[in-house]
């Protein structure tokens, strides 16, 4: 069951190293888990470790923001494409927390320049539809009803894996685009055709990738 995810990630061609695109081939998926309950932290941490993810678990939204370098007094200038801070591939947070709720944390993350592309998943013990809608509208990737199971986390990891493959495919297109330009130069034709990458934007909501019913709900709602 676990070996499937190891085999399918990542299917990147070997020869795309020279483009300065951060290679995640040998790096684990790093998840930041936020939950005020120590029992839940222990469970989610283990669930993620079983799926070979690197986990950092914190007990509050404030601590999460601190780690991400997003607290007001920590403004880090985004000079290295937003990789100036911690590398986090997924943030999973409880909704009901004292102080800052998961929803407030979600908003802060989506407002930041360095982490607004990072998928954020909300967990809650209560299946409240308006709450789910609010989170999805604010940009949450998914909503998990507690208690969290291995299948929930596996689904998230599969999503992360596929996202990496898509990035890999784009890199290949970019490479092909540059090769095309080289060909055009040598044959002395005006280089009017831009690299193919400009016409294929990084899909923020790939419709074929996500199998979550919540995700499907979101697609029909906003599009």
């Amino acid at each position, binding site marked *: 069951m676990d070996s499937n995810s190891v085999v399918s990630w990542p299917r990147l061609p070997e020869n795309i190293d020279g483009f300065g695109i951060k290679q995640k081939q040998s790096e684990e998926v790093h998840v930041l888990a936020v939950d005020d*309950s120590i*029992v*839940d932290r222990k469970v989610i941490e*283990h*669930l993620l470790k079983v799926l070979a993810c690197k986990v950092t678990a914190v007990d509050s939204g404030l601590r999460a923001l601190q780690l991400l370098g997003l607290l007001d007094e920590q403004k880090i200038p985004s000079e290295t494409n937003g990789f100036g801070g911690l590398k986090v591939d997924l943030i999973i947070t409880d909704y009901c927390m004292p102080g800052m709720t998961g929803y407030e944390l979600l908003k802060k993350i989506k407002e930041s320049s360095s982490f607004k592309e990072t998928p954020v998943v909300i967990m809650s013990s209560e299946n409240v539809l308006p709450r789910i809608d609010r989170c999805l509208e604010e940009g949450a990737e998914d909503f998990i009803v*507690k*208690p969290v*199971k291995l299948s929930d986390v596996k689904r998230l990891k599969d999503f992360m894996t596929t996202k990496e493959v898509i990035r890999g495919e784009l890199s290949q297109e970019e490479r092909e685009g540059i090769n095309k330009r080289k060909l055009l130069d040598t044959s002395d034709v005006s280089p009017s055709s831009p690299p193919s990458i400009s016409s294929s934007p990084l899909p923020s909501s790939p419709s074929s990738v996500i199998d979550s019913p919540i995700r499907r709900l979101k697609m029909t709602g906003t599009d």
Partner: protein
Amino acid sequence: MLGFGADLLWADMNRLLAFLFHQGVLDEQFLQLQQLQDEASPNFVSEVVNIYFHESEKLLTNLRGLLMEREYKKMGIHLNQFMGSSSSIGAKRVTNVCVAFRAATDQSNRAGCLRALEMLEHEYCYLKNKLHELFQIEQQRALVAGVRYPV
């Protein structure tokens, strides 16, 4: 001989588990935790459960105090926590009592809260005893199995 003992203990463990499931004391989330236990983390379940016991006892003590003070809203917050952690380990009956208890706090129903607290303490004690029993059998089994295969 010793292998026979290990098998008996394994049967005891399964019988106890089946009983607890049948009684609704535990649900499939407990099974989920057991599935996460492996050679790399052979004590995962007992570790989580011990953390749960530690937290729960603090919560129960707080609840008793808050009920004396008639602090219903604060009790509600504590009950949310208790509910959350109980459901995370698969303690179904305890979770259900928390739900009823929270409803009583929502209505500031003192008599209802007193009854619910009593029931909660009873269910929690029962769960704790049964889980200790389960872990004891598991430990014995590991010991016996270990002796059977000397290094």
